[in-house]
């Protein structure tokens, strides 16, 4: 029978797919950041510097929850106002609320650590006064920051993929049992 729980799982399947997409996007973005064009001559070229800077800023501004400075945002050629982080978080929060309502405690339990991590890392662990340092174009290229970001993205993706199958299984299970 089609219960609320089953509906939740079906919806979360779809949303989970979009989360996976976000995670993949993150990974590619960081990859792009890391793998600067290896054309050495280009590296020394001031024009390239500008392009590169814009690129970094664009990616950072896409990744962050807050608006990049408006002046820079004007320069962003692609999707200047799209922020990927906020949708990602809100979708995830939505999951948790839905499962909470559906009284799927196990699923809620699985998702809570990530929920906690997201809020903690983004909203309470910002070192600057301005609370927007995480993807700071000025420091994101430091090797360890970048590596951390990449690792984080990979972990998230694997988490979402796993949960995708878990939701699939749960959906079928609820449909079958009820």
């Amino acid at each position: 029978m089609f219960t609320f729980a089953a509906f939740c799982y079906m919806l979360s399947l779809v949303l989970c797919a979009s989360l996976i997409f976000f995670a993949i996007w993150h990974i590619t973005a960081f990859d792009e950041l890391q793998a600067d064009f290896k054309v050495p001559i280009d590296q020394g070229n001031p024009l390239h510097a500008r392009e590169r800077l814009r690129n970094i800023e664009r990616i950072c501004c896409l990744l962050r929850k807050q608006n990049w400075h408006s002046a820079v945002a004007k320069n962003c050629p692609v999707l200047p106002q799209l922020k990927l982080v906020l949708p990602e978080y809100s979708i995830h929060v939505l999951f948790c609320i839905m499962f909470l309502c559906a009284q799927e405690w196990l699923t809620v339990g699985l998702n809570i650590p990530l929920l906690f991590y997201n809020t903690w890392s983004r909203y309470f662990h910002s070192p600057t006064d301005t609370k927007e340092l995480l993807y700071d174009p000025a420091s994101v290229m430091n090797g360890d920051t970048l590596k951390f970001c990449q690792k984080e993205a990979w972990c998230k993706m694997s988490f979402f993929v796993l949960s995708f199958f878990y939701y699939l299984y749960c959906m079928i299970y609820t449909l079958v049992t009820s």
Partner: protein
Amino acid sequence: MSTQGYGNPQSAVNNYSMSSAQNGGGAATVPCQNGPGQAYPAMYPPSSYYSSAPPAGYPTMTGHSAPPAGKIPVSGTDYSGNYYQNSSGPSLYPAAPGSQTAAHPYSTSNAPVPSLQQAAPYAMPAGYYGQPYSQPSHGQTHAQPQQMQPSLVPASSSNNLGAPLYPIVSYPSAPGSSQYGTLRSSQTGIGQPPVSTVMPPPPTQSSLQQYSQGKGATPTPAHPGYGAPPLSQTPTVNGQSNAVQQHYDQNLVNPMGHHYSGAPPTSTGPNTERTPSGTPGASVHSSPGHHQGLLYADRGVNNAVSSAAGDHSSSSSDHEEEDEEDEEAGGDSSSTTTGSASPVPNSYESLEGGGYQDLAAPPAGVPNKQAPPFGYNYPTMHPGYQQSPAPRPDSSPAHGGYNPSGYQPYSQPFPSLNELSSALGGLSGVPELEMETLRPLNLLQERNILPPKQASPPEPNLSSDLRKVNCSPDTFRCTLTNIPQTQALLNKARLPLGLLLHPFRDLTQLPVITSNTIVRCRSCRTYINPFVSFLDQRRWKCNLCYRVNDVPDEFMYNPVTRSYGEPHKRPEVQNSTVEFIASSDYMLRPPQPAVYLFVLDVSHNAVESGYLNVFCQSLLDNLDKLPGDTRTRIGFVTFDSTIHFYNLQEGLSQPQMLVVSDIEDVFIPTHDSLLVNLKESKELVKDLLNALPGMFSQTRETQSALGPALQAAYKLMCPTGGRVSVFQTQLPTLGAGLLQSREDPNLRSSTKTVQHLAPATDFYKKLALDCSGQQIGVDLFLLSSQYSDLASLACVSKYSAGSVFYYPSFHHIHNTAQRQKLQRDLQRYLSRKIGFEAVMRIRCTKGLSIHTFHGNFFVRSTDLLSLANVNPDSGFAVQMSIEESLADTSLACFQAALLYTSSKGKRRIRVHTLCLPVVSQLSEVFAGADIQAITCLLANMAIDRSVSSSLSDARDALVNAVVDCLSAYRANGSNIQPSGLIAPAALRLFPLYVLALLKQKALRTGTSTRLDERVFSMCEFKSQPLHQIMRMVHPDLYRIDNMTEQGALHLNDSVVPQPPLLQLTAEKLTREGAFLMDCGSVMYLWVGKCCNEMFIRDVMGFPNYASLPSSMTEIPELQTTYSERTRAFISWLLESRTFHPAFHVVKDDAPAKSSFFQHLVEDRTESAFSYYEFLLHVQQQMSK
């Protein structure tokens, strides 16, 4: 004989180490006298030292020294021990094998020469050497010592030796000669006669030169290994007293000439033909041929080539002083294209033959023999030994004793070292240091741990050949001079791994290379450098990624010697610091002109402080010194609550002011006439500068619209890029980027957290990034007495690769010290070299990776820094990690390449390469720790930490760094007594430096510190070069009222006394004395109450202590010897510094004395430990 010599290798070793330690120059000779060198065993330090050294290196050695190999094993451990103690170890080895028989006879036969020499010790060796010559048959073995001897002589300053010796030996004292001499002689007994006839006169000269100068050339000439005597002796006519040149030019009758002419006997067809043409300016290098032979023989060991390193200087014509004028000169002299017309010898042999001018017939046998072992050994060899094998076989009977002599030259590359060594009467202490670094010390008992002189950085444990060409520690330093093999080992040592760079430093000598193709590795794009290996003549192996690359045809031509077939002798391969003139491939847009924009605060506050007068006057004085060419452009913007532009278009009768009051949306009133050509509008600019201070004298505007002014500057500079200099005197209060006061004065001395270290707004950072993208660098001068939120403002410089200057409570009348400092800083700032649109890439050996950068820049890629402007006074730090094990390599290399546009509009690449050994033992890692570099890197890390986390976290982390490291050492050394606080000698200053760091303005708590001063101190830590930081952290304290001539340096015509360094504690102060404290950017002269009246009268110019004014800012120029001596000492301290420090005379009873006493870091303060307490604290932490 041989047995005897062999029997006591240890004793020989002893000699060496002792001698080097004891008497620098002279020491070398001692061993010679003793022959086998048994004399000193008693003095020799406990053999236990040796035990620590892994014997790993030894076996390889045996390979080289083929004949007596059997014996070696016995002494194996000894040798390796020796190796560790003093880097010269390797050179020792050669002595043993085979050559000994020869050696002995000679050692006894000293007779002939002694009379020639002044110094008794030298006489012996001379005689010793003299003999071999007479006996051609011995040629091979003896040649080496002979050469060494000459090199020795100059060092020891008895130059006259050379002349007499000459006729006999034919190898003059010039170090260069020694290099080649051996080689040749070893290969053939021939060739000497002709040469000797040619050269007699030069020797003395060259020897003199070498000695006196030693400058800048990292590479030292004398190679024990290669001693092609005749070649190198050149009368160095051209004023450059480059040791190198001498070597090479030897053959030349005509100094400027082509050496080929000089070497008639052997030169083969092609070479001779080529010889003549040449720009007179170009210094001629020695005939490459010699090297070749050697080189190729060595195969893998191409670095042996570095013997030629002397080159450094030899490419004289190419050298440029920092002065940019020379660019053109550099261009002509070394362009590789010139030679392309001449035929390339097609066969290897022919090349070689050609090269060996003097060798009528190079005996194939010898080189061949040598070759296999080198090539074979290379990969496995212990790092230190790697290169050394080359010299070894040749170097004959040098028993311990000789090595030092061979060594000496090496220790001389840096002038300062040179001077120091003379002062110390030692070999710049290097070997001693190596030996000492692991000695455990109980810090709780060791009171005097400061070195008597400013400590020189530890020398990497490399073979002398490599060491010679290695990058100067002033430019490039690594925290660990022995790179651990794996990350695990690094973690065990608990020391940070990182580099400290000063890439754009003012250099006195720099080879500049113009060439159509800049040779780089095809996969990792590394520039060719002295540490690559030439597999054969046409291929080289990258030392960073190990890819095998082809040598382009063009590279086969050596512009310095104007000959073909010797890629290993090109200046790129001879110098670890070179500069290329980049071709048009390296630019997409034409190089930008030098553009300077000055953005000046003219609000009431600013006018009140009077900085405008100082600035305008300084700029007027330095207008002609601004680096640039005919395209140089200049502009001015002033601002208070509005923004004023100045139209300086040529043809106007006077400057025209344009006011823009719309600060919400700033626009540029007119585009073409605000930044004007300096040359064309110079008169207008001068008018403006003269008028500026008066223009705003009546202003009542107190607001400051800095943000909009910066936006305007950005828009103005956008099309070109360039440098923006911003002068600000208060908190920005209007428009974008306005700031509020965040400082709570009551919390200044809080012992808890310090807030507001991070920027309040991102406006300045974003602006800086925009600027960086447009190649605009922003330098900030903050002159304010009030809180101005430097933490936010500094971002504008930080990310645009600018610099920050801060003058707290500046006033042109009331604060003379600050005014003088501003004047001097401006003087330097305006006239210093500048590079535009720069990028710096740091590459390192595969397996190492960079993970964090410190400094002012924008990180554009994981290994690429974008520097809108680069200036010679900024330093960078880099943290690294070891990602893959380095077990399969013995050397780790780092290359920093800085591509920039000079102020003359040339695209240039400055490349620095540093090479360090890789080790597998924890003890070696400790032994190679460079404590100063570690301190600087830790300071940078702590500052990052205090901004991103909290100050107390950062402080804890610093203390933990010491605790962890000393614990690691204790855990490692099992046989160390548990009581006390034990540290290896290399790290003995670690706790002291960390304590000093904790007491810095940037990191201290509990002492009242203004937020701006704290932040400025942090900025300095992040952007200053190492020496400057170290003086800040641990100032040098000297007592100067009783300086004597003892141990004084004699420079030119002045006597510079050398008072010992004192510990920074009030214990060392006495009321009867006067003490000078050198803190880098400020100097204090503390005069005690009962200070000797004569000092006050003769030096200070006042009758007694009471009449000394409370604020003196300079020492008067009096004609007394006392005064002259004092001033000589102070100016000696200042001579290498680019920014003049502020100078304060502090009376004992003046209120200002607290600023002096706060630097006495070993003393207890209300809120901080004394040094001893800190040690106890560390010990307590360790026992937890």
